[in-house]
């Protein structure tokens, strides 16, 4: 499922919004979503999309599209990390 659809599904359920209100250009603040709501939003995104967000989410995320782009970037990077070969730290005795 696309990140946009996942995000929309969560917000429709939790904030009683419609899909039409959640167009990519929609401003989060005008939808009544503040920085604390974002915490919970990302908590659910983590679960649905299997990504991990450890640090502060950037305050520059203003629109639905910004969130989607941020999450897609994380998905891409974390997928790369997952697929990368596990480095071998074993030390060969001399």
């Amino acid at each position: 499922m696309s990140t946009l659809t996942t995000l929309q599904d969560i917000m429709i359920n939790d904030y009683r919004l419609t899909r039409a209100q959640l167009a990519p250009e929609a401003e989060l603040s005008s939808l009544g979503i503040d920085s604390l709501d974002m915490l919970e939003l990302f908590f659910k995104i983590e679960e649905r999309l299997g990504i991990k967000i450890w640090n502060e989410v950037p305050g520059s995320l203003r629109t639905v599209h910004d969130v989607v782009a941020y999450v897609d970037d994380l998905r891409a990077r974390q997928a790369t990390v997952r697929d990368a070969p596990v480095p071998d730290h074993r030390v060969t005795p001399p």
Partner: protein
Amino acid sequence: MQRVAITGLGVVAPLGHRVEDLFTNLLAGRSGIGRLRVSLQEKLHTPIGAAVEFDPDEYFAPQRLRMLDRVSQFALVAVARAIVDSRLDFTKEASERCGVSVGSSMGGALTTDEGYMSLYGERSERVKPYTVLASMTNAPAAWISIDHGLSGPNLTYSTACSSGAVAIGEAARRIRSGDADVMLAGGTEAPLTFGVLRAWEAMRTLATEDRLDVSRSCRPFALDRDGLVLGEGAAFVTLESWEHAIARGAHIHAELSGYGLCTDVGHITRPTVEGQANAMRAALRSAGIPAEAIDYVNAHGTGTQQNDSVETAALKAVFGAHAYAVPVSSTKSMHGHLLGAAGALEFVIAVSSLERGAVPPTMHLDNPDPLCDLDYVVGRGRTDLALRHALSNSFAFGGTNAVLVASAPA
């Protein structure tokens, strides 16, 4: 020095959402103690308590609710009731002259418990993002200030079972000193969750369930008392400087005339006669009245072996012969022990006693203890009394003894 007027009362309590209902139920000797429904209760030896009937959806939108532990929900609803009762309009007040003072022993215990269940019980690494905000002990106070726009002092006191009384007493001091015009003060507690109940059981301080009638399980001052019963809820008062209350034509329920504080330093749980007596003496000094002027005592009266005999001895030490004449009751026999909210709820009850000229009973005291030989208003409330001064005791693990005195407005 400013006199302190009590102009608003608000509760969310076992036995009532309105002070009138609560007091009527207490006077009639009704008990709010019953079987609890909490998860994992099969692992509890005694799954009993005094729960509040409370549907949070009646008061809060879902989005808001996710951030509020039950302890904050209780506080916000009780304080809103106290504000309505006092007919205060905070838009007309100087915001920085109005403050909040809250007592809570365990803060957002349900949120903490839920987080631990997820992390340790379910071995999940996920914990809700609002866990810190919902469980922090000062959350109830913070939300009150935010909701009502009060930018004066915002304080939370955590002194175990005396937290609510301390919060009210310390708020009164701010008004007395002229530092604040209005203080919303009280206590809130929501401890009825498996983790908390089990921890109290482990201390061996909880009453066993009465086999014939669960509602009779808490028996303060009785020979067969065997512990306290936990309860939940919140109680708040609106405190104002006397001048401020008179200037706006407010109805004054009573004057908060005295507050005494003293600490037992001998032991973390064991109370002392001297410590409790000194707190009562300090409260009487602060009220400027002799012990003989007290017409009603709302006792701490937990129903534990330790407290009730020590409190009785402390009352005798302070009141002398008057100890046998003044009605003393433990309403915990009916509403249970609300921990950090107990002192606030019992102070509201003491104020209501003054206003109504009525004294609620101590229930379930069928077997008198020879060490507890005062007039505990056994089994039946009294009405048509002329009451001028009431004293409310709150003692605590950790030793912080707090005593409040309310006086009929004059």
